């Protein structure tokens, strides 16, 4: 195993300390930071598939996000402005009236590690903030999360506002969260729904990276 493969496998095994050590060592050895980031992205992809197979659990995803964040803090200053080329922009947030952020953060981390630029609006996000973030960033994907049944109304409201702003046909909309299903998706007027981070990544790729 070379240094980069070691990083991929340490991250995939969620070995926090080891991953960070290996990343620092690779930098010292002069391995280009972009390649190190790539190795970490491979590790995150492996974590995603272990999650899909049931070997990993939500908590493991949270931990992977935490490790990836720490790796990012080390690598970001070394990467050239803008870092790696991004696959596209995604605006993401938990809708107003709902402050659940665990699921939202996992999805945001997975999207980031898959190479997307994510504008994370946080939780309890007012309708207008979603709309202005879409306008300012020019993002063409909107993701909304909500764990409460009450969040559905907020999702619908937000989508109506996106339509009113004349953005609806330019923006793909995905929703997710505990009680979300196909019926909810239809009722609120979203394009797609998902119940885990992997699906969010697949949808974003499908919409923004037609080759995938």
């Amino acid at each position, binding site marked *: 195993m070379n240094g980069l493969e070691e990083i991929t496998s340490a991250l995939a095994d969620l070995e926090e300390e080891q991953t960070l050590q290996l990343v620092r060592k690779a930098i010292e050895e002069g391995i280009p930071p972009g390649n190190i980031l790539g190795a970490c992205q491979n590790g995150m992809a492996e974590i995603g598939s272990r999650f899909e197979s049931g070997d990993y659990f*939500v908590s*493991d995803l949270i931990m992977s996000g935490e490790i990836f964040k720490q790796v990012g803090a080390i690598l970001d200053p070394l990467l050239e402005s803008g870092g790696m080329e991004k696959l596209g922009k995604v605006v993401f947030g938990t809708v107003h009236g709902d*402050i659940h952020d665990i699921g939202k953060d996992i999805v945001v981390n997975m999207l980031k590690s898959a190479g997307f630029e994510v504008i994370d609006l946080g939780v309890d996000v007012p309708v207008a903030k979603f709309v202005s973030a879409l306008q300012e960033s020019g993002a063409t994907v909107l993701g909304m999360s909500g764990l409460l049944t009450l969040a559905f109304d907020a999702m619908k409201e937000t989508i109506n506002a996106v339509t009113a702003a004349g953005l609806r046909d330019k923006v793909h909309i995905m929703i997710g969260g505990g009680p979300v299903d196909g019926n909810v998706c239809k009722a609120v007027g979203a394009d797609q729904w998902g119940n885990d981070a992997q699906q969010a990544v697949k949808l974003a790729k499908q919409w923004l990276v037609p080759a995938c």
Partner: protein
Amino acid sequence: MSKEDSHNPTEFLVTFQPSGQRLICLPGERLLEVARQNGVRIPADCGGRGRCRSCAVRIEGAAPDPTSTDRDTFSSAELDAGWRRACQAQLHGPCSVYLPRLLSIVTGQNDGPSCVPVEQPILVPDREPGFWLRDDYRVGPLPGTRALGMAVDLGTSNIAAALLDLASGEVICTAAVENPQVVFSADVIGRMTHALANPASGCQMQQLAVEAIAELARRLTDGCSEAIAEVAVAGNSVMQHLLLGLPLESLAKAPYRPYTLGETNRLAAALGLHLALGTWLQVGPNIAAFIGSDHVAALLEVMADPPKSPWMLIDIGTNTEISIFSEGVLRSASCASGPAFEGGILSCGMRAAPGAITRTHLVGDNISLETIGSVAPVGICGSGVVSLVSEMLRNGVIDKRGRLQLTRPGVREQDGLREFVLAEAARDGAMPVVFTQTDIRAVQLAKAAIRTGLDMLLESAGLQEEEIERFIVAGAFGKYLDLESAVAMGLLPAVPAGRIVQVGNAAGAGVRRMLVCARARQRALQLAQQAQYLDLASRQDFHVAFARRSFFA
């Protein structure tokens, strides 16, 4: 809708067994809905969303075609025998529905002293015999010379009540029933969701709670409910809101504000409770949206004979409340632990009833099980879950991340889901008892929620776990918990031996104090106001702290 007087030619009869109750149904009606509308109790732990099998019933006659998720839930033998989930079953013809027997009378709720002190009585005799005064209000006439009161611990799963002599504080008798609102959902979030989606459901749940209290009153007084002259109720905030018919909107969404935090007094008659004329019902004060008067009552009970400080009190349930008392400061937090330890969402979870596995021992390939009543295993209850998970950890059946290991004996994979077999299917068609990977995940989440709360409270008080002098575990689950297993799986902190005590239903004991004594009510109010509420979920480091605690160290 079932209408007894309609003459629609497509209608047909559905008979519920063993009660024999018959209903007229129309094609396409969902069994669970029909049952709810007509007061037939079928539990629905997941709220009727097809996520669990708690509403499993056996249908004879025109059994509906199984849905695809039914096929995942039941074996083909079970499907052939007519097993369906009531939430999924769309009726299409005459049939008999066999309900599993529910234990409506609950035991093990009657902890606490047989007499509580009355420093300042709530009712004093009026001049006219048979009448009493509650401040300026008259209550009566009462049939006897004593004024009786009822203390109610309004739990999400069970409702426990005690009858007391209001003058002497003597506990005359106790009773408990299952909370009939479980037909809507096992947990408070599910019930809130139903009430918010449909106001009629909210009214129905209010009525169910009132009827359960009325039934307890009849049972406690041998049918002479009008002898009861005062009622005190403690419960979590959702139970209180539903009982009083208070608006739930602000409680259901951030920033989670209850309609009221203070105590609430209502005339019992206004709620539909037929007790002595002029009887008041008081619902106790709350600390925060999800730390209700039940926790205040438990704190009151603990404070009545204060342990050496610093101490902690934990009441584990679908919502777990924890308090820490150190250097005169009381801090409280609530954790969304979910129903895993009440058996609620587990594939083979059940209440502590005959056949429930309470202890497990794994030695090599051998599993030995202890069940309530020493009968063949039917499912697993909370104390069994804790015992099992600690045994699985000790034997490497699960790794520290909670993953079931296929190489270990007893572990198999069915349709991509791993499970640990506790008891194979029996020849008489009894379903196997298994503990699945999903069940373990549910336990991990519950444990993580509780430990994050515990550890953050310790941190806010500047204490290490070994510095806690008394660790008090309250509640029905805590009462039967094997402490060694609970510490081994990391659910409870490793405090020095002998410092963990199991006190049973402290909330039920505390509400008795509040029932009879004005001073106790004042103290409860002070406790509720002085407790510092620690909002865990708003902390930046909550997720990672939570994730780390979902693993087994």
